[in-house]
């Protein structure tokens, strides 16, 4: 039946903020406490996380400003008008490579974690494949459907995160947080570098600005979308330090899941809560990955307009799968994560901010409605 359109095809700024928050909350938080505790002392890692968060908020603000200028014109066309078409081509290509690497990292991370916590025998390849196929199914639907999924799943994820943190009050020792402020600046900076990954993702506002119905609110939405995960990360970090203490936190691979393993659910209804937490967490990782995949498809289809969306999805799936199966062990996997951060720093932050500065310098009129 021919579709009849009078429903919404645009997203509000609240939905944009929720989308960005949902993209930010992904596999990063599962290992963030350990990563930061490894280089800081006591509970001072919160300074690193807060500092990275503030930088992310500032970046989000600037990228939001750029997004207003991009407007409905499309990122490729707008950047071509600022930095000439060949450079814009490279930029979009780099951006799509970044999104593809991001997706691959997410899939592999899920496969690793699921293999450790949910499955014994099932091969990690199969887990990754299933997850990738479900994401591909989602991305081959409508773009606005993906945004709606974000809005649907994020409340569940935040609620379960708070439930886990709240239920751990019985094993939480305030004394484990002390002493405060004993770490030096070098360690804090190290911690900041390690906490970059959980804050990646707000650059997608550049791509979804075209379907926002109030583009002027993009910076506000982007900032709000970073603030919520920042608070969650800080809380989670403090809770894990209080429960495990810095000394053993450094050694626990997935502190968030171990926290869920330890909580005592009143009524003894569930024993190992981490399976429940992890399955709910799959929802937000699914969201992150589907948005990243969709952004990659958007970037590539902006460059090669003749190719249909479903064709892109079918072509990119094997590529993502191969990338995600390439790391052989944990060390390689960390390398992939750092590669993702490096790509992000260049293509998702440096170049857009550069474009923004250039556009300010040239005082080009913005094409925002």
């Amino acid at each position: 039946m021919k579709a009849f359109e009078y429903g919404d095809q645009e997203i509000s700024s609240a939905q944009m903020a929720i989308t960005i928050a949902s993209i930010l909350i992904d596999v990063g938080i599962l290992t963030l406490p350990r990563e930061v505790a490894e280089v800081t002392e006591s509970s001072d890692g919160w300074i690193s996380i807060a500092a990275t968060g503030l930088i992310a908020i500032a970046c989000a603000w600037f990228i939001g400003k750029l997004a207003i200028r991009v407007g409905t014109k499309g990122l490729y066309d707008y950047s071509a008008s600022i930095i000439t078409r060949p450079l814009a081509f490279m930029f979009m290509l780099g951006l799509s490579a970044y999104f593809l690497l991001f997706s691959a990292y997410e899939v592999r991370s899920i496969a690793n974690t699921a293999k450790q916590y949910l499955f014994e025998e099932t091969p990690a390849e199969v887990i990754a494949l299933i997850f990738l196929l479900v994401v591909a199914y989602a991305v081959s639907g409508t773009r606005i459907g993906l945004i709606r999924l974000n809005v649907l799943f994020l409340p569940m994820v935040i609620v379960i995160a708070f439930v886990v943190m709240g239920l751990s009050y019985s094993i939480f020792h305030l004394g484990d947080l002390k002493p405060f402020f004993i770490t030096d600046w070098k360690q804090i900076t190290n911690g900041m570098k390690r906490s970059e990954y959980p804050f990646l993702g707000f650059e997608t506002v550049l791509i979804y600005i075209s379907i926002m119905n109030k583009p002027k609110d993009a910076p506000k939405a982007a900032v709000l979308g970073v603030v919520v995960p920042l608070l969650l990360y800080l809380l989670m970090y403090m809770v894990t330090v209080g429960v495990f203490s810095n000394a053993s936190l450094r050694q626990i691979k997935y502190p968030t899941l171990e926290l869920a393993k330890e909580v005592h659910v009143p009524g003894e209804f569930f024993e190992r809560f981490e399976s429940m937490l992890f399955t709910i967490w799959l929802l937000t990782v699914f969201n992150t990955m589907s948005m990243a995949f969709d952004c990659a498809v958007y970037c590539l289809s902006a460059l090669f307009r003749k190719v249909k969306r479903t064709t892109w999805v079918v072509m990119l799936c094997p590529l993502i799968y191969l990338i995600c199966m390439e790391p052989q062990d944990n060390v390689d996997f960390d390398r992939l994560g750092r590669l993702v951060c490096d790509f992000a720093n260049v293509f998702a932050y440096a170049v857009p901010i550069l474009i923004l500065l250039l556009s300010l310098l040239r005082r080009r009129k913005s094409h925002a409605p």
Partner: protein
Amino acid sequence: MFKQLFFRRAIARTAQAAAAGPAPGRPLSASLKETLEAIRTTLHAPNDLIIREFIVGSVNCPFALVCIDGLVDNNLVNEQVLKPLIHYCGADETGSALLNTVECEVLTSFELDRVATLDDSLLAILSGDTLLVADGAATGLLVGSRGWKTRALEEPQTESIIRGPRIGFTEDLRTNTSLLRRRIRDTNLRFDIQRIGRRSRREVMIAYIDDIVHPALVPELKRRLDTIDMDDVEGSGYVEQWIADSFLTPFPLILNTERPDKVSGALLQGRIAVLVDGDPFALVLPITLSSCFQSPEDYYQHWLISTLTRILRLVAAFMATFLPALYISLLEFHHGMIPSRLAFSIAGAREGVPFPAVIEAFMMEITLELLREAGLRLPKPIGQTIGIVGGLVIGEAAVAAGIVSPIMVIVVAVTAISSFALPSYSFAISLRMLRFGIMLAASVWGLFGVIMAYIMINVHLVNLKSFGIPYSTPFVPFFARDWKDLILRAPVIFMDFRPKLTQSLNPVRLRRTKKR
């Protein structure tokens, strides 16, 4: 091969044209004999066709009365049509002039219409009207005389409620429209009729309230109804399946109900109703996921009770879909998640059971579906027995024989009861279908499979539209105003706006100007 295709289409076209019947617009002949002959030939002189020829007036103009026995109200035809005409002995006109006089001064029936073509008159005769033709007049008179046997108004069986009106629609369109009119006395209530079906020429009526409904919705619905080109629209189910946005989805995109209060409530919310002659089930569109959890009873009870009942329905929907899958995944994959004591007792209970939990679950679910289908077909007293026999005896026997574990029986029973707790039958059956898919996913990958299946269902829901409105409204897109009637059923005095999802022109429906 291409030639075959090409010819196949051409052949199909001519066959269609042949089946279409005579080209419309053949005018009635002025000669009475010719008209009657045409009628007899076209209908092939069935023996329930009554043609009464008589003479009217002092000029002895031949008249004929044509109707189908069984469809007409005999008394009306005799008393209101035949009697005054036969007793009329005035006027010296003939032909059309006489027909005019008859129309204005003689006939005592209140439903009169003029008809000029043969096809219209045949359609009217076959619908139960009486045709009055005069020799010398090229038009005929149609007297409304429908009087077949209809069912008495009774409570709908599939949607009985504790408190509220106990009237349901019947198969007669006129009765149904009268039921709606009695509930809404608004001058803006519109009933637009279309005839659908080449051979059945069934009346399909669109009901809406003009200044509430979104202006683009009705034309779209009419466009979709126009695309129906079948022999017979056998029931509202056919119409529903044709005009729905997608036939691939298991979820109901159009609501069907037998209750007039549900329909009138929907009309006042800004939706449209479609009633099909011959089917007591009316269609309500557009709907979203929220409609699947609402029942008219919610509005007749206290808001607190209704809210808790709705929460219960959500829990029931969740259990009806996920419980067997969760059972499978907890018992086959994630033994650590069950509390220790329970795990040991379940392991002890399953010691002698030959089948793995997966096979057990599928077996029991299929058995339950069989019982359910059997219970539907059997006459009432035996149907009840089957329910009890099936539930208690077979379950007990299976457990005693050691084929299934008792926990499986509990899970299956709770699942079945939960699916009966949902007010919308079409939604319940779609959940039944999904349940098996999720069970399959759970049996291969455990909880991971369950959550992947859940994500896939959500992806599907989020991309679904019912007449332009996203199906997952008001969950997302989030309309805060609509949440007053979603899970919470706000007290009556707070429901002052129509649901935002219908995008009605006139959203205010309640004013709190006077002090209570």
